């Protein structure tokens, strides 16, 4: 490839594979990352403002419930990101698509962060409402195991020095993990009901006010924007690291690029 990577997307018709080339991906995400950050900041500001000032006080839980605006989006993201990670890792493994593997590697820390955030905010929420930071409830336990799955993936991929083997082994582990997630969830659920543990259910909660829902959706989109921004930034770093021998990276470095 001799063409200038930054003009390349316009030079050829856009296909599914256009941005699977690292230089084009690098150029595209260079434009997208600031947009994602701007969206993230705007949506977070709007979501938090709605959540903290507009949404009404909950009838049963009082003001405490407002942590939901961070907790629920984080929990959604944690589960979604694992599947997205397994998907891209699988694509990278099956089709030998380097960029897909790099994206999968870049997603893992963000997913682990959201899982931890969901657990942490859950504990802070549980203290005033349930009277304890932690119960061995099915959801909490499976979220904890999800965190372990993320840590296992990160540890395995970091422990293998050979990049190709690390990507493939990580992909295999991520796929096995995602097949196991439903099994783990249901086994933990049945375990909990058999043990007659804490009978905490959020599913029976009263219907949500529409402003609450709006705030939560805004925060969810903010989390999406954040995840895109961070994953793109991390992937760009991985791309530079892995492609350091390529001509376009040296050109970029010589040009004192952005």
């Amino acid at each position, binding site marked *: 490839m001799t063409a200038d990577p930054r003009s390349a997307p316009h030079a050829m018709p856009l296909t599914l594979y256009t941005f699977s080339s690292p230089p084009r991906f690098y150029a595209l995400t260079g434009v997208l990352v600031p947009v994602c950050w701007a969206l993230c900041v705007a949506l977070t500001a709007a979501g938090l403002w709605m959540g903290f000032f507009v949404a009404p006080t909950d009838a049963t839980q009082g003001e405490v419930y407002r942590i939901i605006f961070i907790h629920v989006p984080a929990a959604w993201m944690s589960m979604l990101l694992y599947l997205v990670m397994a998907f891209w890792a699988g694509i990278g493994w099956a089709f030998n698509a380097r960029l897909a593997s790099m994206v999968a590697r870049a997603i893992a820390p963000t997913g682990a962060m959201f899982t931890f955030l969901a657990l942490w905010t859950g504990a802070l929420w549980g203290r005033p409402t349930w009277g304890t930071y932690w119960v061995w409830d099915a959801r909490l336990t499976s979220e904890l*195991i999800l965190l*372990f*799955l993320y*840590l*296992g993936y990160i*540890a*395995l991929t970091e*422990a*293998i020095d050979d990049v190709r*083997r690390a990507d*493939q*082994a990580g992909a*295999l*582990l991520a*796929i*096995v*993990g995602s*097949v*196991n997630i439903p*099994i*783990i969830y249901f*086994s*933990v659920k*049945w*375990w909990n009901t*058999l*043990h007659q543990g804490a009978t905490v259910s959020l599913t029976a909660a009263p219907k949500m006010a529409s402003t609450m829902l709006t705030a939560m959706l805004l925060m969810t989109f903010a989390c999406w924007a954040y995840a895109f921004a961070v994953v793109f930034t991390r992937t760009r770093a991985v791309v530079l690291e892995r492609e350091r021998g390529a001509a376009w990276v040296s050109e970029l470095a010589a040009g004192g690029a952005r």
Partner: protein
Amino acid sequence: MNSVFAAVLARDLRLAARRRIESLLPVAFFLVAISLFPLGVGPEPQTLRQIAPGIVWVCALLAAMLSVNTLYAGDLADGSLEQMLLAPGSALQLVWAKAAAHWLVSGLPLIVAAPVIGLLFDLSSPALATLVVGLLLGTPILSLLGSLGAALTLGLRSGGMLLILIVLPLATPTLIFGAGAVDAVGSGLSASGHHSLLGALLIASALGVPWATAAALRISTE
């Protein structure tokens, strides 16, 4: 057709028979680790009876994970693993044979030792029988999952710890149903539901995990 399976199994069993003390390490670890719990928790029979199934299962899990480490390591070191993967006949049979050998050497002795555990923890005979059936169904799953972990972490510096970190989350359902069966019997319920689920897990992992393990071996040795 089955010759690969039989040959690898016979070879691994012969190797284990020639290293008798080493082969007995998992069951020794299992017994020692279990004996430590009463020292830590206290000798109250009621408490011990209640926590016995969980302890037995966690120790069985750890014994499997600590011993599965070496499943492919020796063959990788002397190059025979690559030869076996290159040889005609499927890698699946190799994986099945390896997991079966691991179970026969380190899983089966745990089940044989279970009556001793029952004695130590004052388990009733129905509870002990449930525990043994659960272990019979569950320890092969641990060997299969462990062989996947061993294949993924083959030849890595921090292989042992990493293997445990990778496999433990995947093994939680086995642990839950295995220990849950004994609890169910303890509270006067039938354990058949738990045992059916363990059986289902065993079938699913016997059919599914070897594929992943064979793929992992290819990834690790290429």
